[in-house]
């Protein structure tokens, strides 16, 4: 029965306790459950641990491998540090939701088949939405609804792909695929929605910064990285992923440069960093896949660290706009130093974790003679330093004196940040400890003099560019339009116009009908005149079209597709 005691189940079982217990008992559960889960991750052996049958399909809820354990390790560790960061400040239900969300991510890591994977996938979508709603503002509620709509849509596309693949091949095993037919394309698109690939990249920066300071730390870690993990398993070497990744890399930089909200800058830089991983998966060699996995591992640590640092600022001041911040280094030294370490790590400075993992991806591109990819990734590395490495700490902690003198982080938040800051440097100094656990044998040394000098030049001269171009980067109180404008504004306007046009036509036709059928002594309203009350009701239905009706249409399409396919 020991196999039932999976890392996922332990975390799931802890969540009711978090709600039921109080005080020290609750704190103990919050801190101990992820550690037990982490220990259990390392007890999962290679291969399928348990199998059940579900109709004619073989379900494998737990399957182990080096790659699976690597991702599950960082997710469990992230849960612990997230719990440590949050347990004295967050409401219990936010932490509980965060833990179910994390359990879903670990569940995906060990899912041996597509059905299990899909169940945990949806669990994550559901509970990450709750974490966003825990932001508590009306903006958080609305962003949560948009986020949920996007992820349910992505989940449905994934489900269509899984069902049709299962019907075609008779198996729900997770095997490497190529996007070549309907089912594999649907699966790929479903996965790409979760990595924030174009054209739906906007969901990430729309939703994450609306969560609470503690909630956004959880959010930064799981959704995109489980999707990266699944892409490594299912689409290694899929050529389309290279341009998709490069787009994400550049998109993240440009939007982060335009952004004023500190946490939104970090959210855009998630898209940027995940772009590096997606591109590496597209390259698909052993070195590239190792690079993607290692970079995901390092990324979760420094990105959570950056979100924690920004979170402390928001927690202490209630402000996240760069225009209103500045000069906080005076009273928040711990938060500032941890934020700077995270910023150096994300930029890939030598002796930080980012350097030891990002160089793997560049080397993989060079080995395959992908000249354009190599130079674009190098340019992007410079851009990362520009938008996250300097811009974030500069505008938050230095820049000008905003007059704010907040206290530094509470002890538990400091402890969480210091732990992850230390890990950023530890992995940077002893990369072999991470390399040893990568899916393929590693024959790679990041610290050759050529690479170190090349990156130092690249990054330091980006720094020079930043300070010389500072007048061009003055923050403005603005947001930036994204492709989601199409469904947030254009589609809504179109549906409203369409609805009023339909109404006008109906009324017009009915007026003529009334005139023609004048001999019948009927009251106009019975003939189709829309009363005011009905009109309001109809407009309301149209207004909700994008959410309610989309789900309905997808269900109808899905059922008809399956029906056609089966017959």
């Amino acid at each position, binding site marked *: 029965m020991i196999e039932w005691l999976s890392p996922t189940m332990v975390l799931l079982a802890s969540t009711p306790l978090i709600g039921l217990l109080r005080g020290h008992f609750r704190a103990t559960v919050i801190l101990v459950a992820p550690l037990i889960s982490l220990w259990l991750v390392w007890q999962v052996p290679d291969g399928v641990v348990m199998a059940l049958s579900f109709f004619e399909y073989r379900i494998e809820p737990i399957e182990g491998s080096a790659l699976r354990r690597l991702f599950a390790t960082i997710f469990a560790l992230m849960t612990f540090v997230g719990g440590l960061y949050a347990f004295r400040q967050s409401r219990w239900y936010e932490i509980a939701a965060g833990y179910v969300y994390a359990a879903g991510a670990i569940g995906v890591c060990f899912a041996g088949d597509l059905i299990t994977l899909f169940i945990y996938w949806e669990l994550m979508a559901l509970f990450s939405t709750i974490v966003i709603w825990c932001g508590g*503002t*009306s*903006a958080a509620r*609305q962003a949560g609804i948009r986020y949920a709509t996007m992820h349910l849509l992505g989940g449905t596309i994934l489900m269509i792909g899984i069902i049709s693949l299962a019907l075609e091949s008779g198996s729900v095993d997770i095997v490497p695929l190529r996007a070549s037919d309907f089912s594999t394309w649907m699966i790929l698109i479903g996965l790409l929605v979760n990595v924030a690939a174009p054209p739906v990249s906007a969901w990430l920066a729309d939703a994450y910064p609306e969560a609470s300071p503690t909630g956004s730390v959880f959010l930064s870690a799981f959704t995109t990285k489980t999707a990266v993990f699944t892409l490594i398993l299912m689409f290694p070497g899929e050529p389309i992923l290279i341009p998709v990744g490069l787009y994400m890399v550049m998109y993240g*930089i*440009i939007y982060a*440069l*335009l952004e004023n909200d500190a946490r939104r800058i970090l959210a855009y830089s998630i898209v940027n960093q995940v772009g590096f991983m997606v591109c590496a998966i597209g390259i698909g060699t052993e070195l590239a896949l190792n690079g993607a996995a290692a970079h995901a591992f390092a990324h979760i640590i420094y990105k959570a660290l950056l979100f924690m640092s920004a979170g402390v600022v928001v927690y202490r001041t*209630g402000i996240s706009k760069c225009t209103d911040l500045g*000069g906080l*280094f*005076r*009273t928040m030294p711990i938060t500032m130093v941890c934020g700077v370490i995270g910023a150096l790590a994300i930029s890939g400075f030598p002796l930080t974790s980012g350097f030891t993992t990002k160089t793997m991806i560049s080397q993989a591109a*060079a080995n395959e003679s992908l*000249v354009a990819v*190599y*130079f674009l990734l*190098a*340019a992007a590395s*410079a*851009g990362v330093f*520009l938008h996250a490495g300097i811009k974030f700490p500069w505008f938050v902690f*230095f820049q000008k*004196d905003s007059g704010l*003198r907040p206290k530094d982080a509470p002890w538990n938040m400091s402890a969480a940040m210091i732990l992850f800051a230390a890990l950023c440097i530890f992995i940077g100094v002893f990369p072999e400890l991470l390399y040893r656990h990568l899916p393929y044998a590693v024959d790679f040394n990041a610290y*050759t*003099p*050529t690479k170190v*000098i*090349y*990156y*130092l*030049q*690249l*990054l*330091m*001269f*980006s*720094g*020079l*560019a*930043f300070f010389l*171009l500072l007048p*061009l*980067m003055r923050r*403005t*109180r*603005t*947001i*930036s*339009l*994204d492709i989601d404008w199409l469904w*947030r*504004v254009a589609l809504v306007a179109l549906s409203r116009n369409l609805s009023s046009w339909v109404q006008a036509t109906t009324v017009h036709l009915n007026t003529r009908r009334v005139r023609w059928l004048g001999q019948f002594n009927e009251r106009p309203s019975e003939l189709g005149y829309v009363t005011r009350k009905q009109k309001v009701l109809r407009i309301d239905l149209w207004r909700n079209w994008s959410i309610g009706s989309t789900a309905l249409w997808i269900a109808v399409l899905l059922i008809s597709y399956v029906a056609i396919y089966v017959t």
Partner: protein
Amino acid sequence: MVGSIKDDHWLERPKTIKRLWYGFVILLLLSVVAQLFIGGKGYFGIDGWIGFGAGFGFLACVVMVITAKILGKVLKREESFYGESDD
């Protein structure tokens, strides 16, 4: 005292900032000069040139900042554009 109204933190003094700039420029030069001693070729020839990383990094940043600036003219909107109060 840190945090007094009249701001006199040592990091904010013009003298310190000047010194930081000098230090930074020296580091920049060192990073280029160091390349003379370690030799080493790039992957594609051109990236092995002396100071390639420096020039490429600088130019890439200039291009990205200007691209963002131009795109910003088209994409930037008031914070209330989507009709949500942000706080």
